[in-house]
């Protein structure tokens, strides 16, 4: 972990299964969590870490928020207070796309999900780059039910590309596009859309 632990911490697990987990954080930073980001949640008592791709970010409403939303001329302070000071968490769901164990990345579902309250860290740029060097996580995204798979795929690959030096981004996206093409070759209109959104 090349990154400062504190800085990378983005919350704790509230719900989970081997297919993924839901995390909650009090106040989000502008950059994290975002759609298509990679994160890590501890599992097996710290022996493994599940890698997730964030695909859904939500904030539950509550009575106060509903009232504030219709209040006439709320003050700046009132709005900020409602947005940040309340105890309503920002929730995000991550799809498990692999795990890290014994110093290596594995591109299958983890053997055990993280436990509730396990810490969740954002993956550092270097980690994302290492993990995404192989594209074997693509089938796990493509096979996920009931989530916007294509948008997530494109976002995750753009995130992965962004961790690389400028000159290798395009070759990386081409390679990734080809991997997608292999998986989606039967559905040309869908593939076309996906590739369009990968455009560097």
């Amino acid at each position: 972990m090349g990154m400062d632990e504190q800085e990378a911490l983005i919350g704790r697990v509230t719900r989970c299964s081997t297919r993924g987990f839901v995390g909650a954080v009090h106040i989000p930073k502008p950059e994290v969590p975002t759609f298509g980001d990679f994160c890590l949640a501890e599992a097996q008592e710290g022996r493994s870490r599940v890698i997730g791709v964030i695909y859904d970010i939500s904030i539950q409403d509550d009575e106060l928020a509903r009232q504030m939303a219709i209040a006439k001329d709320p003050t700046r302070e009132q709005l900020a207070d409602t947005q940040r000071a309340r105890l309503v968490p920002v929730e995000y769901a991550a799809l498990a796309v692999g795990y890290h164990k014994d110093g290596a990345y594995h591109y299958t579902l983890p053997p055990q999900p993280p436990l509730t309250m396990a810490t969740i860290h954002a993956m550092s740029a270097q980690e994302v780059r290492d993990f995404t060097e192989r594209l074997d996580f693509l089938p796990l995204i493509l096979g996920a039910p009931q989530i916007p798979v294509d948008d997530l795929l494109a976002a995750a690959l753009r995130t992965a590309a962004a961790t690389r030096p400028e000159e290798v981004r395009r070759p990386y996206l081409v390679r990734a596009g080809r991997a997608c093409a292999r998986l989606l070759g039967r559905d040309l209109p869908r593939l076309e859309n996906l590739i369009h959104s990968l455009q560097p």
Partner: protein
Amino acid sequence: MSETPELDDVFGTKPQEAPLGLVVEGSLSSGLTVKLDPRFAMEKLAVGRYVVIRGQQTGRRFFGIITDVALGATNPDLARRPPQPEDRFAAEVYRGGVAYGIMHVSPMLMLDEEEEEPRPVKTIPSHFSPVHEATPADVERVFGAEDATHFHVGAPLDMEHVQVNLDLARFVERSSGIFGKSGTGKSFITRTLLAGIIKAGLASALIFDMHNDYGWTVRDEGGREYKGLRQLFPDGRVSVVTLDEETSRARNSKYDRVLRIGYQEIEPEDVEMLAALLGLSDVQTGALYYLRRQLGASWIAKLLELEEAEEELRELVESGRIVAGTLGAIQRKFEFFRRMGFLVPGKGDDVVDDIFSRLNMGVSVVLEFGTYGNTLAAYILVANYLTRRIHQRYVNQKNRAAGGKADEPKPLVIVIEEAHKFLDPQVAGHTIFGAIARELRKYNVTLLIVDQRPSGIDDEVMSQIGTRVTCLLDNEADIRAVFSGVSGAATLREVLARLDTRQQALILGHAVPMPVVVRTRDYDKEFYAALGVVSEEDLGRKAQEGIDTLY
């Protein structure tokens, strides 16, 4: 379609060692389909090049030749739904993903791990065996080194420094053919090969040189001069016999003797080959034999009225055995002989015996036709006349040798151009050339036929052609003819149709371990030197040096 997803990862860092692609399907008879690696630019491929396939189940390596290149797609709809022309990213992604290159490879030879000598293929590599470009070392191993009987004829495509060495002993062992459109380099290759055969002393050649391409100085369209065989072997290993002394003298070419054929020597069989060219009908052709019997050895002189025979001829007509119209027509058509200056009244000289004894001593003979080369009938008459008689002498000597009464005759290669005129299906069955092609080397005589229209040659004769050296051909029937009787060769069709228009040839058959496309060796000073020819200036200088040191 199957695909190894790790391929990119496994080979990603070492593109120079990466295979061109993987074998994905195919058969021994129809060849292999190879899916190309997207990182390899298929635009750099060329049919005719060699590849090496590493078997996956054994250490066996397969040598093959690229026979076709194609575009493929995992989804057939892609052709109807290509990426937008300006979308270069999408094009790049598709290329190598859903769209990919394919090449077809004909496997030719295989080499087991511990073996030195490659053998003809009897099986094919398993699925997903990697296909690599053949290295010069691979190709050298297949064609072996140059030695006394292996002659350097050219270089494989894109491998200038690799030698393709033809097994000349095998080349002359059976009849061979040099094919190609006009101007593709047939005569140059033939001369190169003959130089090799003469140098190796494997056979004597009797060359019916229609266009003065072999004996003395040859001049090309650009006016450049090339040495003829007589100049390459000034030591007497090559004789030139001319039909046309005047032209030979005008061309300043050296000749060893002049060919004269006496009218009395000509037999109806010699004339029969000319029937179509002279316009002799079947009845007229049949009448020749009757006339020869009735008129005796002077039959031609008598028919041409060079000898008094009016009475005799009238009697033949009156006896009713020949009608006046037939006789008149034959006499009219025989006027052709009068224009052939090499035909002389009387018995002629010993030219056949002389040529035979030269050949039998290992001296090659170039028959220079001079201006008679433009008259096909003259060419056919002389080639047929001499070949029948020389062949007969070979048969006699071979039989005597079998009885222990003579030495084996020196192997003979007879070179004819426009071969289809001698070997077309109508005549091949009953001409001396058809017989030589079919009897294989029973009497130590084989043919080297040079032709631009192989489709005109009788199939049965064609199937006896051991080695085929083929320059560019674009006529479908000719291409088919060249491949007839060679199993699996049809896959090389595209290779043949895509040869350069000059100085490139596909060689297949008896004298090469596997088919090969060569850029033929330049016929130039370097070649002369390789043959050990010393130019006249050099000779002069050497002599001068000798004098200097002597005194």
